[in-house]
């Protein structure tokens, strides 16, 4: 059974066409991540799925039922917002139970679900506190708890980690992954952070300018990007692009090589001048200029490379990608 399916979904705000013919199927229990640069329409798409915005045309179905005309609360979804969006006048328990009370669930059910959710998220000591008395990480856990108690068919996360600091972000990321394993529910997660996308997703949807660029598992997208945009968006540091004529005269294609596929070689085909070195201990990132093009090489281990040095890099021709001048992948 498909948890969610979108058929030719379009959305316009006045004359601005934000979503263009989006098609997508999410299987039961799948973790799908929408990723793309800001302004690409990923949050709008999530809002259309949630029912907070109406699709201008196209069909949204959740669990085999067309929900275009169903209000958000009846769609069997729960949403976690970037800004937490907790109710300031209710304590943690009140925040978590409000939706269940609105549904008219019996008290025993409500109590049991709050117990389960708060145990899962270590929120038990905070149930009687108000949002203003919680730290950022705790607030985000309450927001997630508020989603869990509803037992939705579909969880929607709208950049839930972007307000947290780096250390907390990693912990919460792992927590969300665990949660997905425990609950087995379908989840849709919006982010602009490709690390979150790669680590959490079963399936990544890359969006640009309201269009789906590619859908696939993280490794599929990494190993086999459909075009230059996807190739450049996934992977960190991002893929190096340079005109193929640097290597071969008269070749007007664009070549892409991942920073981790470059290595130092005395007879290397690329000759570049180092402009900056980032020594991370485990890796060394070398940023160098290849004529007018900046390239990044990720060298494993520690290397004594200095700025201003001339280096030669080599790469395995099989690890290179080729794109035409419009950015479409050739091979």
């Amino acid at each position, binding site marked *: 059974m498909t948890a969610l399916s979108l058929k030719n979904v379009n959305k316009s705000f006045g004359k601005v066409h934000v979503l263009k013919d989006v098609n997508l199927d999410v299987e039961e229990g799948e973790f799908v991540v929408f990723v793309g640069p800001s302004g690409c329409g990923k949050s709008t798409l999530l*809002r259309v799925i*949630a*029912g*907070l915005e109406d699709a201008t045309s196209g069909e949204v179905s959740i669990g085999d039922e067309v929900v275009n005309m169903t*209000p*958000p*609360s*009846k769609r069997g*979804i*729960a*949403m976690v*917002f*970037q*800004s*937490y*969006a*907790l*109710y*300031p*006048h209710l304590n943690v328990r009140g925040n978590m139970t*409000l*939706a269940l009370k*609105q*549904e008219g669930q019996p008290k025993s059910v409500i109590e049991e679900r709050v117990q389960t959710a708060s145990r899962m998220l270590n929120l038990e000591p905070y149930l009687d506190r*108000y*949002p*203003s*008395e*919680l730290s*950022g990480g705790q*607030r985000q856990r309450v927001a997630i708890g*508020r989603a869990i108690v509803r037992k939705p068919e579909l969880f929607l996360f*709208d950049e839930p980690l972007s*307000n947290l600091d780096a250390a907390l972000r990693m912990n919460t990321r792992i927590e969300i992954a665990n949660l997905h394993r425990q609950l087995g529910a379908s989840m849709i997660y919006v982010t602009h952070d490709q690390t979150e996308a790669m680590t959490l997703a079963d399936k990544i949807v890359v969006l640009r300018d309201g269009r789906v660029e590619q859908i696939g598992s993280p490794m599929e997208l990494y190993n086999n990007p459909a075009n230059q945009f996807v190739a450049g968006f996934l992977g960190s540091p991002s893929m190096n692009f340079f005109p193929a004529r640097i290597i071969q005269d008269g070749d007007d294609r664009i070549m892409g090589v991942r920073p981790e596929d470059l290595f130092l070689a005395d007879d290397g085909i690329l000759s570049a001048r180092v402009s900056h070195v980032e020594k991370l201990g485990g890796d060394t990132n070398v940023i160098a200029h290849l004529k007018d093009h900046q390239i990044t090489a990720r060298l494993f281990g520690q290397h004594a490379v200095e700025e201003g040095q001339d280096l030669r890099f080599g790469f395995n021709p099989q690890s290179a990608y080729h794109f035409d001048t419009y950015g479409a992948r050739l091979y």
Partner: protein
Amino acid sequence: MNKARSNPLNTLAMHGALILYTLIALFPVFIILINSFKERRSIFREPLALPDSESFSTIGYETVMQQGDFFLYFQNSMIVTVASLFFILLFGSMAAYALSEYRFRGNMLMGLYLALGIMIPIRIGTVAILEMMVATGLVNSLWALILVYTAQGLPLAVFILSEFMRQVSDDLKNAGRIDGLSEYTIFFRLVLPLVRPAMATVAVFNMIPIWNDLWFPLILAPAEETKTLTLGSQVFIGQFVTDWNAVLSALSMAILPVLILYVIFSRQLIRGITSGAVK
């Protein structure tokens, strides 16, 4: 803390300026208060002197209590002010919410139309208002005043509140929608508490002109049983003789309720509960 603020000289100058301003602002009130407790001759002989055993007299307050139904006037003023404020805040915030939250055709025009009232003094329409009140039989009723004051206060209320409501987090409202709250619950339970400081500002701005107004009570509700306090105090001011004791005493008593209302509203200006809802 920045340097300018921690400098003792600056602090002194700042407090000096504030204290001076407070004194200037409170001086007339103080003069009214002390003179209301003096007998007539001392008011004119030494207007700035405090009442002493010789000049002390409560004759003004006694006159006010005896002449006219002072408590009724008081009650009328209170009813008119509180009811008008209630309607201004209720309808003003609802209109502001609609304008700031929903996208509909003519949203912008409607906002401008509602704000237009700020620029046009309502008193220009006095004759038309009077004719309307006569036609509807509302003359000499408190409703006449309440309706006029509500109309008078709405433009500014809508203008201020819609600005503030635009700042209320969309995520919070959307979370409510997903949790199945109705638009009314979202408005009353989530949005209104967050714009409480703005509501208090609007209330204070509207309260004082309504309480002090003489024009509309005189024209629309001059009957004995609907007189407001300001209008009631006018009986002591004659064309040839003015009972200053009574006027000052009535004014002193009129200050009190405004003061109390002001304290209530200004407490609301303090944020606190609002923090922590959204980052």
